[in-house]
């Protein structure tokens, strides 16, 4: 079965962007680029929520090259980007069947709202965080409130340059 991964760069207090959406606090390094490059090789599908897709389209990114892009929304009539397929049906049901298909890994981008429904349906297998040495105090949360407790197994804890920490967890189903 295909592995579904969720994560991204966060502040220590678990925000992925400031309230105004800005990510000026992100720290880049060759090390992080190499980790991301290796990760992208394991993935052929990217799942986004509506907000993430719209933000990404506004930034001129829109779709990720070389992978199948999906956006989940019950309100959108058409996809914000020609390379992104709009899925209007229940995200959990769609992802459950997607996991059964042949293919590489599936990446869930945050925002959190999509991830929340996938966590609640127990469809996420791995979580990867690049914890930045900053407290933003407020902003766009990585995790939205979920019902129920999810136990994890630590796969990796590694200091990166510039004070970032890579944490990778396996979700214990």
């Amino acid at each position, binding site marked *: 079965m295909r592995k579904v991964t969720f994560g991204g760069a966060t502040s*220590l207090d678990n925000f992925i962007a400031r309230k105004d*959406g800005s990510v000026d606090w992100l720290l880049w390094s060759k090390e992080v680029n190499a980790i991301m490059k290796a990760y992208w090789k394991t993935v052929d599908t990217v799942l986004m929520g509506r907000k993430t897709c719209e933000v990404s389209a506004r930034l001129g990114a829109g779709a990720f090259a070389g992978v199948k892009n999906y956006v989940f929304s019950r309100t959108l009539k058409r996809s914000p980007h020609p390379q992104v397929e709009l899925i209007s049906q229940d995200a959990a049901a769609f992802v459950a069947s997607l996991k059964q298909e042949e293919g590489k890994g599936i990446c869930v981008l945050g925002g959190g709202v999509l991830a929340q429904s996938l966590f609640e349906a127990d469809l996420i297998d791995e979580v990867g965080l690049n914890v930045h*040495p900053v407290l933003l105090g407020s902003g766009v949360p990585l995790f939205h409130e*979920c019902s129920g*407790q*999810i136990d994890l197994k*630590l796969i990796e804890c590694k*200091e990166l340059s510039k004070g970032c*920490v890579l944490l990778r967890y396996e979700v214990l189903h």
Partner: protein
Amino acid sequence: MKERKIIAHIATSADGYIARADGGIDWLNRPRTAGDYGMTDFFKSIDTVLWGRKTYDIAVGFGQKGGGMGKKIKSYVFTHNPRPAEDSQVEFVNEPIKEFATRLRAQPGKDIWMMGGGGIIASFLEAGEMDEFVIHVIPTFIGEGIPLIAPRYFNVELKLIQASNYADGVVRLHYAVSKEQKVLKKAKNAKKARK
């Protein structure tokens, strides 16, 4: 004289909560295969504990007289409504944080344990009076609860001292609060957001 540091030494869930919404910390009760996570050594390095009133009341509610810190430790409980303490080692305070911290740091002593919760940690951060964080990240998502730091508008730069993990998957993150904080260019951020 050695400078006294104010250190938040605390456990959080992997999604960043210090307790369930009702204060529950049942998820912290795990097999202690990795020892005490350095707690004995840390406890020897402090002589003062700072509490938010709600966190203190929860500890007392668990039957911990005076917060359960013993005779050698002085506890200060921050509250808008100070009350007489039931224990000689406990004092309720309602003093501006900057003045309190300056006075406390001027007294000789060991380091100071910031117990939390999120409200008092945020207030000490805003006053520029937090020195270090030692966070033990428990490998579980509890889904909802009380965050480590109450949501406020601030930006605090940290310096990673060390990240390590125990065999049971608990991660220990040790940060110092940077002495030089960048001044946030709000105008620049707002401009970016409009784009």
